[in-house]
């Protein structure tokens, strides 16, 4: 079993990539569990035709602690979980993630024979709780999603700092394109700069958000689209990845000078 956690700047495409990756790995015959760790509970929504599943924390609040009641089967047999959390502006979502992961009980899904567990984590590493999925015993390695834009790479670097502090391995970086100049090169150079690697890049493609309008992944809405091959390639590379290691974050000045060098 391989457990991975997806991090990256807010809105960069973590949930889109996680869900598209999940369904494509499932069509290769793998048992996939996608765990959405965002209190807004939208990571798995495209596995369920736009419907929201019961969240771990809502169930927990009602006294339900059986993991079987928290895992739902979605498109292509992918199992989905949403951690859930407090309404915006109250409580502590970070603590929520830690409690939900504990309630879910990782031994349980190890027992269930999953081949891949994907944690879709919100935003940057904002507090201790959000780092939960990257800690010992959960994700084996982390993947960062970024575009070639400065703020996205800046956020990626902040996450790399968090991983460095927590001594957690980075599997690599997945590019999600915003169609800026020399974008793939920029991401690749940054990845190597922090002693990591560029796994692959996902092009900017309207089919991704068009599918989402119907609560679907690209595989469900456009089964024959080449994008699906791209997600399968990414999945394969992640599953066979032997090059994950703790990243060495760089300074803000260094990021600026790398990106500036392309112009």
């Amino acid at each position, binding site marked *: 079993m391989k457990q991975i956690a997806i991090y990256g700047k807010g809105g960069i495409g973590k949930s889109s990539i996680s869900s598209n990756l999940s369904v494509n790995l499932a069509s290769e015959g793998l048992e996939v569990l996608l765990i959405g760790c965002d209190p807004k509970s939208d990571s798995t929504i495209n596995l369920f035709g736009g419907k929201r599943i019961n969240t771990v*924390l809502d169930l927990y609040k009602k006294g339900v602690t059986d993991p079987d009641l928290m895992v739902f089967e979605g498109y292509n047999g992918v199992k989905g979980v949403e951690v859930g959390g407090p309404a915006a502006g109250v409580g502590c979502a970070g*603590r929520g993630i830690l*409690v939900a992961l504990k309630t879910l009980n990782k031994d349980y899904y190890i027992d269930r024979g999953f081949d891949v567990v994907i944690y879709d984590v919100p935003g940057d590493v904002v507090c201790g709780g959000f780092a939960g999925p990257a800690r010992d015993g959960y994700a084996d390695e982390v993947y960062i999603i970024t575009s070639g834009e400065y703020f996205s790479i800046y956020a990626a670097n902040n996450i790399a700092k968090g991983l460095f502090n927590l001594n957690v391995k980075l599997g690599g970086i997945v590019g999600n394109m915003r169609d800026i100049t020399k974008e793939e090169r920029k991401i690749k150079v940054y990845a190597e700069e922090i002693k990591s690697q560029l796994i692959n890049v996902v092009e900017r493609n309207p089919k991704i958000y068009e599918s989402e309008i119907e609560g679907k992944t690209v595989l469900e809405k456009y089964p024959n689209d080449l994008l699906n091959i791209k997600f399968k390639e990414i999945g394969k590379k992640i599953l066979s990845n032997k090059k994950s290691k703790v990243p060495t974050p760089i300074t803000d000045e260094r990021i600026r000078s790398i990106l500036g060098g392309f112009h």
Partner: protein
Amino acid sequence: MNILTPRPNPIVAALYTLRDLDVDVAILHGPSGCGFRAARLLEEDGMVVVTTSMTEEDLIFGASDKLIEVLTEANALFSPKTIGVVGSCVSMIIGENVKKALIDSGLNNKAFFVEIHGCMGANTRGAIETLKAAMDFGLIGEKEFKRQENMLLLATEVESNKGMAKSKYIKPSRGTDLKIVADYITNLLKENKKIAVVLNAKKETVYLFADILLAINLASKKLGGSVINVGNLSTEVGLLRIKRYAEDIINNLNSNNVAINFISGGMDEYPIAGKNAIDYLKDKDFDLMVAVGIPQALPLIDKESIAVTNGPREVPPLEEAGYKYVTVEIASHSTVMGTREIVFSELGEAIRNSAGIQ
């Protein structure tokens, strides 16, 4: 310096200060058990202390509804005039909007919020924040706030220069056996020697420490010698409740025919009253000084002295400071709650026994 010794935190100090302010109900917005030792003592003293018993679930989803519920319940159960809501580590980390909860409960005309938690440094910070909140709520004036804030900062200084916060870790100690100290005092009186007693007590502990002053005076009446009495027993300074403590003690001493020769300050002025006491004693003739209460706030003198504290962790620094004997009144906190009269102290009893007083 990072101090390892167990000691009170700002939450506990906030609760004590609410009691001083004659607040009827304190609601700690946090887990049950938070500050429970202090809470139980304060309940003995007449203030109701409840918590919102926050749970793991509340940590995640917030507990403002629970706070409103507890506010409403406490109001119905205890019909308080004033309610103080005190923060805790958990409720403040998750950013509970307590002010809004107070408004939503409809009790904001009788309840006020002390924004404090356990990780805000010295315990005195909790007392200062409470006084500030009480000032904003209209319970005390700005002048009184400033005076007390200054006193609390001086108290913090005393603790870190000469008391428990002086070093990283201080092991508790009982100091010298009470009987040895009592016999030493009565023997001096039998030899017709002069003893200066400096009562420098912090607030309610005076009900206990005053007993030592009383016992020495009674022993002197029986055995001989003479006593100079100094105490921070001003009935003019501080909150109503604190002034009442001083009045109680003066009345008690009067009825025992014991007079205070010099008032060194108010009951919450122990950080400066010690210095006033020593200034007064400078040109007085005596053979032994007995300092009781907060001896660490007294400047050192080059005369034989005995220190009586209620903190087993104050013993080592006092011994280092050069006191001949240092001894501890161990039960002070539990015995003084709710009383209006001087209570028996262990050293006082030992002195009475040694002097043969029934």
